[in-house]
């Protein structure tokens, strides 16, 4: 399918965050979500299905209005799944989304 056939392109915006544990954007927000693939997402030691993610989790996040999405290189997360996650977070008012491929929790 030719990409040029799509005249109505839209976009999802995000920031590209560095991978070190000194990164301010990722460490500052408590809203760190680890994509595990197959629509599974991990947040604060609990694993959820993306569509079953409890609303209480997201209401905590609303005050910060930012989230960090961490896609680990060893998972089979597709671009479509990443977009679904970005869509879901934006629909819940998280407008500043930082994307990183690996992250180490600060000690």
């Amino acid at each position: 399918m030719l990409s040029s056939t799509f005249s109505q392109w839209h976009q999802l915006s995000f920031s590209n965050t560095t991978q070190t544990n000194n990164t301010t954007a990722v460490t500052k927000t408590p809203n760190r979500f680890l994509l595990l693939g197959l629509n599974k997402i991990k947040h604060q030691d609990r694993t959820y299905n993306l569509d079953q993610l409890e609303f209480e989790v997201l209401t905590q996040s609303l005050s910060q209005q930012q989230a960090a999405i961490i896609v680990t290189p060893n998972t089979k997360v597709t671009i479509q799944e990443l977009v679904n996650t970005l869509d879901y977070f934006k629909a819940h008012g998280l407008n500043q989304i930082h994307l990183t491929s690996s992250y180490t929790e600060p000690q």
Partner: protein
Amino acid sequence: MWINHKTEILIAQQSKTPSTSETHLIPLINIVFLMLIFFMVAGHIAEQDTTELIPPQSTSKQGLTETALTIIITADGNLWINNQQFFGESPKRLEEQLQTHIKTSHLNSHTSNSLEVVLKVDSQLSAKVLDPVLQGLRTLNVNKFHLATIDTNT
């Protein structure tokens, strides 16, 4: 005498017929040219992507930003930077290539901090294909990205 007169009339009629049809064609040609000029002036010639991919579907309604740097990753994993195919495996080489594009592609007015990049990536690719691109751009202090999508109803 009578025969000669009739022949003259016939010849006169035949010679008149083509000139009448030519007269009818002229407004038609005028209209065609006017339409051609209108579409040339009013039309928008968009730069076409040279590659094939199926974009991810999204509920986002935000129109795609015009940016100076567009990176395309096709279903077969080929990478294009501003419609030039990137050959090479090493992230270092990719970083160099991106740096060259930022310097040469009329991006001098941008500082890399303010530069925004559009990513057009096939929806079924693994998200890890973004890693080398994001790493390369991160080292060049490019941190703002737009992932191109299409409407979920498309």
